[in-house]
Structures are given as structure tokens and as C-alpha cells.
């Protein structure tokens, strides 16, 4: 492994991180927008947002990415590879995330809503100050899991020839022929990024919990995710990863 190859890898890591951040930002916007829309009183809004979730969760992120990259230009919109990747990941993970938002909003005690109405909060204040602020800490652990899944999915962008980590690994493999070494190294690099992301999200979770006056739970292990729940709380719909 020469210095030039390491340089290639670090460039790849940087693009991977950028892809992850952009798609996560889009996914978060979609998740809150659609998740809140699914609690709407209007039937048509609920139906449309529900249809969005089922469509984008029902199909494969990679197929969506290929569609945006290869099929959309035929309709007259040519997207740069990075944007096709970001859009595909943001839209599909937004659909997964909206289920998290909906679930957490639904778990806020009904009395909170009644209290907010009694205090004559506007609907917007009710959502922001009562519902979201209490639901946010609940959302953090599943969001962490989704973010890791999203990070792993950015590897798909390499198939659109975007110069992220997996793509650089392909170049490195072609120039050195050292498959085991190259792919071994980038697997470790992905693992390190995932570890850092988990730590950052753990901090964010702690802050979110502290802001509503709850002590953070002590959890062991390096990654220690929320356990895959069996039973009624399982994320049954659409077969999403937890």
C-alpha cells in the first residue's frame, strides 16, 4: 500500500461522508414532513403520505438510484451522479424514518395533547413544543440505526461511478491487483466511520434526553443497538430494517 493509494482512500472517505450527510439531511426533512403528515386530520393527506411511504419502502434503493440516473434523463432531467445517489438514498431512508417519527409521535401521552389545547396552544406550537420535543428522544435510537444503514447504502453510489470509498477501492484493486488487502482496508474504514457516527448519535441522544429532563440509559458494548424488537412493537410494515 503506497501513499498514493491511501490518499485515494481518504478522498473516498470524504466523498462517502459528504454523501451520507447530504442524504441524511434530505432523509430527515422527508421523515419529519411525511411522518407529521401521517398524523394529519385530513384523510387525503394521510393517504398520500401513506402511499409515499409504501412506495419508497417497497422498492429497492438501488433500483431507485438506477432509475433516477438512467431513466429520468429520458424524461429530460439529467441528474449528476452525486445528486441521483443523494436523492435516492434521501427519499427511501426518509420513508423509513417517517415511520419512526409517526411511531414516536403516536407514543406521546394523549393527555399532553389535551393539556396543550387547554392552554390554547396553536396547532403548530402544540406540534413543536409538546409533541416533537417529547418524541425526539424516543426517535434517536432508531435514527441511529437508520443512519448506519444509510451509510452502508452510500456504497451503492459507486455503481453510478461516483468517486466514493467503494469506487476508489475498485480503482485501487484494478491498479494493484491486491483484492484482499484493498477490500479488507475499506471494510475497516467503513467500520470506523460507522463507529464514529454511532458515538456522535449517542451524544445527540444524551442531549435530547437531557433536554426533557431524563437521565440517559447506560448501555454497554461498542455499538449496542436497540434490540430488534419482536412482538407487537416490531417494525412490521414494509419489511424495513429496524
Amino acid at each position, binding site marked *: 500500500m503506497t501513499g498514493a493509494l491511501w490518499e485515494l482512500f481518504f478522498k473516498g472517505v470524504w466523498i462517502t461522508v459528504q454523501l451520507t450527510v447530504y442524504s441524511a439531511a434530505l432523509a430527515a426533512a422527508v421523515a419529519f414532513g411525511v411522518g407529521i403528515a401521517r398524523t394529519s386530520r385530513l384523510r387525503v393527506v394521510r393517504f398520500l403520505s401513506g402511499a409515499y411511504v409504501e412506495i419508497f419502502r417497497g*422498492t429497492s434503493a438501488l433500483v431507485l438510484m438506477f432509475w433516477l440516473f438512467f431513466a429520468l434523463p429520458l424524461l429530460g432531467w439529467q441528474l449528476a451522479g452525486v445528486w441521483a445517489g443523494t436523492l435516492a438514498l434521501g427519499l427511501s431512508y426518509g420513508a423509513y424514518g417517517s415511520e419512526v417519527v409517526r411511531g414516536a409521535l403516536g407514543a406521546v401521552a394523549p393527555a399532553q395533547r389535551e393539556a396543550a389545547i387547554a392552554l390554547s396552544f396553536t396547532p403548530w406550537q402544540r406540534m413543536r413544543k409538546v409533541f416533537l420535543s417529547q418524541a425526539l428522544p424516543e426517535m434517536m435510537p432508531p435514527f441511529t440505526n437508520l443512519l448506519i444503514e444509510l451509510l452502508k447504502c452510500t456504497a451503492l453510489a459507486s455503481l453510478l461511478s461516483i468517486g466514493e470509498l467503494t469506487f476508489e477501492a475498485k480503482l485501487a484493486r484494478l491498479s494493484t491487483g491486491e483484492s484482499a488487502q484493498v477490500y479488507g482496508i475499506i471494510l475497516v474504514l467503513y467500520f470506523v466511520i460507522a463507529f464514529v457516527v454511532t458515538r456522535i448519535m449517542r451524544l445527540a441522544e444524551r442531549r435530547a434526553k437531557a433536554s426533557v429532563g431524563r437521565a440517559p440509559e447506560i448501555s454497554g458494548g461498542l455499538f449496542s443497538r436497540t434490540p430488534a424488537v419482536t412482538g407487537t412493537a416490531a*417494525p412490521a*410494515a414494509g419489511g424495513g430494517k429496524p
Partner: protein
Amino acid sequence: MNTWSWGYVGDILPDLLKGLGVTVEATLLGSLVSFALGLVWALALRSPSRWVAWPVGAVVEFVRNTPLLVQLFFLFFVLPSWGLTFSPLVTGVIGLGLHYSTYTAEVYRAGIDGVPAGQWEAAVALNLPRRRTWTAVILPQALRRVVPALGNYVIAMFKDTPMLAAITVGDMLFQANTIGATTFDYMEPITVVGVLFIVISYPTSLLLRALERRLVR
């Protein structure tokens, strides 16, 4: 530009359905591998010996937190140099199965933890040997609880099989790409593939929800 052509869809449908067959085959075989391996990981993680539990835990975390696509490339390019040559489909099934086994291990773990402590105590009280405790008392109750969650991972795996196209498995996306590369018209093939995914995964998820209501109370 050109508009949607149903005639073209009719022409390419046989190839895409052939790809669907490969996709389903990879999903089913991959599921079997992940169900079996996941149980092995889950039991190993409960091992009283730290020398078993710790390395298995490390491997499981590593595989779960790294991309499936890169793992597939690793298997595809590296296994042959170790003298293990498999067809692309078998390599893909190994990759899918291994990756998802780290998820199913979590599912089994939760299922086993969900068996009430009284069942363990009863097994001890009846002087059941360790093996019988697992096969006759704990696992039958745990497995019943985990079926819907495992089903969800089957759907997730189904939606990840297009990645196998990257290691030249002739799945749906691979077929769509091949067609697109010859006709220069990607619109119909990729759209049909996307719709087929929804058409299959959405009813399956509804079915699982129904199953969950029956099995888990």
C-alpha cells in the same frame, strides 16, 4: 423524448421475469443461510465462555456495520484467490446470508430473552439436560415469537438482491441493465423492475402483519 411503450414492455418482460426468478432464488437461499447462521451466532453469543462470545460478537458487529456491497466484492474477488471458486449466485447467497445473519442473530437473541424466566426455572426443576432445555422448552417458544421479525428481514433481503447484479448475477436489475445497454432505453426496464419490487414486497409485508397478529400475542 420517447414516451412509454407497452409493446416494448411486452418484449422485455420475459427477460425480466427470468431475472425475477434469480432474485427470488437468491432471496430464499440467502434467507435459509441467514436463519441458520443467525441462530448459531445467537447461541454462541450466549455462551458462558468469553473465548466464544467475544470473538463472535466482534465478527457480528463488524459484518453488520459494513456495507453488503463491499462484502460481496470481497467474497467475489478474494475467495477465488484462496482456492474457493463459486458461481456468482452462490457467492451472492453466501454474502446475503452472512450479512443478514448478523441481523437475525439479534432477532433470535430478543426472542430467547423474551421467554419468561419461569420456563428456565421449570426446566431446571424438572432436571432437564441442557440440550433438552433448549430444544424442547426454550427454542420452540422463542422461534414462534421471531417469525414475523425474520420475515421482515426476508423482505429487506429481497430488496437488497439487486446488489448481486454488481457481481454479475443475472437478477432483475442485471437483466434491466443489459436490456438498457442494448436498446439505450432504460425507462421501461428499470421502471418495471421497480414496480415488480413494490408489487411483491408490499403484499408480503401485509401478509406478515397478519401473521404477526396471529403468532404474537
